[in-house]
């Protein structure tokens, strides 16, 4: 089965510092961390103490409210630190890796012949269930639920994004096994692969619905793909897994070992060694990125939805790239660089800068300056240009701001996640923090549903 969709609304922001298709030599990394805040809404309950030894695949912590959901250690070694923040919230569980890795052994089962319960059990035990996430709310899925479909986005359209086909090119066997496991989870419902139109890399995968998407970002967002293929209604849930994590799941079923590998992109105008890197998840990033110039922002993830990390931080659980862009702390004089200036260096979704007349292939060096101050909503029709959902974004946001749960439901909050609004946030004239508003709305709804 195959479908094709054309996304018309959106924009590709072309930034400098694209990762070339070369695999950088992987430096030896000995420090790793799993960060509970990567799993939104999770209250972790620790299973290990500082100084304790763990194997790759040992559970580090569980979900306090759903003890079945365990979180695996990506490596074997010693737990060196549990970093806590305000109110003793656990921020990082750090592990110093052994030089030779030991693996927790799980029985390798064939997902094709196993039952659905066995597959779920295996993923839960191995601490790999958190790879399976759900919409609504964009959180770790509840293993008791029956999703109405499962989605895997097989391309990333965000600025400078990882080329997932390139990252998976030696992993297609594991990917195929992982898909078999997802088919079991789907329990007869569709498993959908969202692929870039014209790509044939996933044609060998059998028994799935391949949906080809063309058009600008956010065509690669799984939320957009779900909305087009099988939109979510109130009371339903849809599961989704990142493409590289499907391969991780497949590897676990084939080998019986938890080997959490990823090929990540290093990109951005400030990154000196752009390219791809094969790493184990949760890796310390310092040796990957090398030296960064003063005044650089390092982001775990892409520039629209990623998280800012320190140069000695760790890669996020669901992220598959590191981006380095300049900070924009310099005030801009109005006539030269500011709002009255010619603005030849300002990329804009609007046409208020002459840059929209420049060739589409031009690559931009954008910094983190907000380019203005926060204001009330004034300009209309702006979000709609970059938001390919059949949803009124501003009205949904206003419903969230005034905490009108009924309106939020009616306006389609179940179908969206903060990342789907990232381009709206980018394009906003009023500099409204759109993604955090959406997250707040989802939290309120989740609270109500519970």
């Amino acid at each position, binding site marked *: 089965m195959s479908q094709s969709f054309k996304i018309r609304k959106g924009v590709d922001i072309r930034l400098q510092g694209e990762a070339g298709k070369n695999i950088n030599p992987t430096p030896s990394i000995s420090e790793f961390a799993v960060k509970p805040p990567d799993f939104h809404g999770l209250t972790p309950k620790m299973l290990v103490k500082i100084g304790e030894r763990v194997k790759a695949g040992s559970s580090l912590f569980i979900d306090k409210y759903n003890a079945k959901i365990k979180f695996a250690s990506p490596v074997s070694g010693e737990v060196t630190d549990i970093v806590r923040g305000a109110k003793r919230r656990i921020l990082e569980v750090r592990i110093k890796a052994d030089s030779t890795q030991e693996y927790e052994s799980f029985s390798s089962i064939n997902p094709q012949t196993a039952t659905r319960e066995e597959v779920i059990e295996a993923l839960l035990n191995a601490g790999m269930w958190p790879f399976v996430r759900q919409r609504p709310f964009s959180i770790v899925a509840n293993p008791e639920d029956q999703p109405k479909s499962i989605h895997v986005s097989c391309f990333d359209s965000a600025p400078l994004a990882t080329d997932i086909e390139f990252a998976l090119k030696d992993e297609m066997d594991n990917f195929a096994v992982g898909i078999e496991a997802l088919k079991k989870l789907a329990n007869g419902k569709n498993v959908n692969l969202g692929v870039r139109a014209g790509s044939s890399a996933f044609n060998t995968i059998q028994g799935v619905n391949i949906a080809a998407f063309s058009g600008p970002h956010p065509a690669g967002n799984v939320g957009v793909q779900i909305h087009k293929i099988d939109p979510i209604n109130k009371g339903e849930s849809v599961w989704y897994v990142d493409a590289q994590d499907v391969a991780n799941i497949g590897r676990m079923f084939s080998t019986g070992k938890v080997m959490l590998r990823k090929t990540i992109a290093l990109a951005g105008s400030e990154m000196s060694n752009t390219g791809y890197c094969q790493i184990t998840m949760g890796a310390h990033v310092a040796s990957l990125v090398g030296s960064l110039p003063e005044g650089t922002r390092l982001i775990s993830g892409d520039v629209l939805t990623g998280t800012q990390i320190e140069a000695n931080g760790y890669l996020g659980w669901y992220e598959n790239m590191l981006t380095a862009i300049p900070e924009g702390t310099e005030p801009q004089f109005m006539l030269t660089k500011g709002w*009255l200036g010619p603005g030849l260096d300002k*990329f804009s979704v609007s046409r208020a800068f002459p840059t929209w007349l420049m060739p589409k292939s031009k690559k931009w060096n954008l910094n983190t300056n907000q380019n203005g101050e926060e204001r009330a*909503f004034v300009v209309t029709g702006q979000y709609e240009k970059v938001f390919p959902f059949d949803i009124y974004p501003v009205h949904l946001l206003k419903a969230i701001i005034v905490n009108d749960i009924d309106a939020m439901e009616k306006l389609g909050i179940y179908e969206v996640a903060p990342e789907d609004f990232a381009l709206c946030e980018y394009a906003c004239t009023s500099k409204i923090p759109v*993604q955090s508003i959406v997250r707040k709305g989802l939290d309120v709804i989740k609270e109500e549903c519970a």
Partner: protein
Amino acid sequence: MKALRKLIDNNIRPHFEEGGKLKRFWVVFDSLDTFAFVPGHTTHSGAHIRDGIDMKRTMMMVIIALIPCLLFGTWNIGHQYLLGMGAVSSGDPLMSMFWEKFGWGATRILPLLVVSYGVGLGIEFLFAGLRKHSINEGFLVSGMLIPLIVPADISLWMVGLATAFAVVIGKEVFGGTGMNIVNVALTARAFLFFAYPTKISGNVWLMANEGDTFADGYTGATAMGELANTIGQPVGGNGTASIRAMFSDSGAYSLWNQFVGLEPGSIGETSALACLIGAAILLFVGIASWRVMASFFVGGFVMAFIFNSFPANDFMAIPPIHQLMMGGFFFGMVFMATDPVTAAQTNTGKFIYGFFAGFFSIMIRVFNPAYPEGVMMAILFMNVMAPMIDHYVIQANIKKRLKRAAVAA
């Protein structure tokens, strides 16, 4: 610029910060500071990069688009005056006595701008100070619009009063820019219209000195002021022949004169040409909605076409395009109806809103002789209706979603 920045940060800013002598004027300092320098604020949540556009740039684009209307209006004040005094005749080249005309107009328009901006921004600063938020850029445009939609002979104190009313009652009571229900500039004009109807009824809109006497045959009335006299008289009747003549190709209100704007009227509205240049700028930079403009034009044209097809008097009989060239139709279409805050906000809603605003503009203009122009009323009315239009557009979306859920269940 680094030096200036340093001077501000080291020597000026501390006086306005907490503990400084001028703390209560922080809003003033902050707005001027952010006016001169886009602050070095970096993103702290969500997307790490942001679009180059901000509110200041947006508003600036509208002001740039208003410049053709402003310049033409300035010249036209002088042109109409000299025409009225008999110093030039309508047959003279338009460029004759250019600087006399422009200078005369400037003596009129500059005080109006000063009063409008002075009063409006003064109140904005006051409210921003009281509410402890930064100055919003909305009034930069409103302050320019207000002088352009009043007659040249209006008293300055009236403009000041109307501006104060519009900013306080039209905007600040709702929470400031972005929260208002009706267009601020039109609120000011509506205030003038109802408070001082004799000043704004379109009979004599000519800026003149006291004691000046008009040249023979020059009435200084607007086209619609003249046409109002035809109401109640048969189409093509003898009593209205002189008025019909004014709208012929050689008359004072010929299609060409009205397109270029060579007629008395509110300062910025007379020239359809200048408005269309403004429209071109706004559409090129994508600030104003083409949906509103296009549907506004279509709505006006449809109404004018209907009137023209079934005329009951000479006002209705005016050909549709000529009807649209008159008065403030184009100015309203380009600069008033497109105000994003008060227009419909959904794309579908914009078509409906624009169509009816244009439709009612012509209807009110022709059917209600008490209002010599209908554009202001029509847009204000549709401003009020816009949330309802959006409501139904959104309800349709909600129904679609509920239906989908029902099918799935």
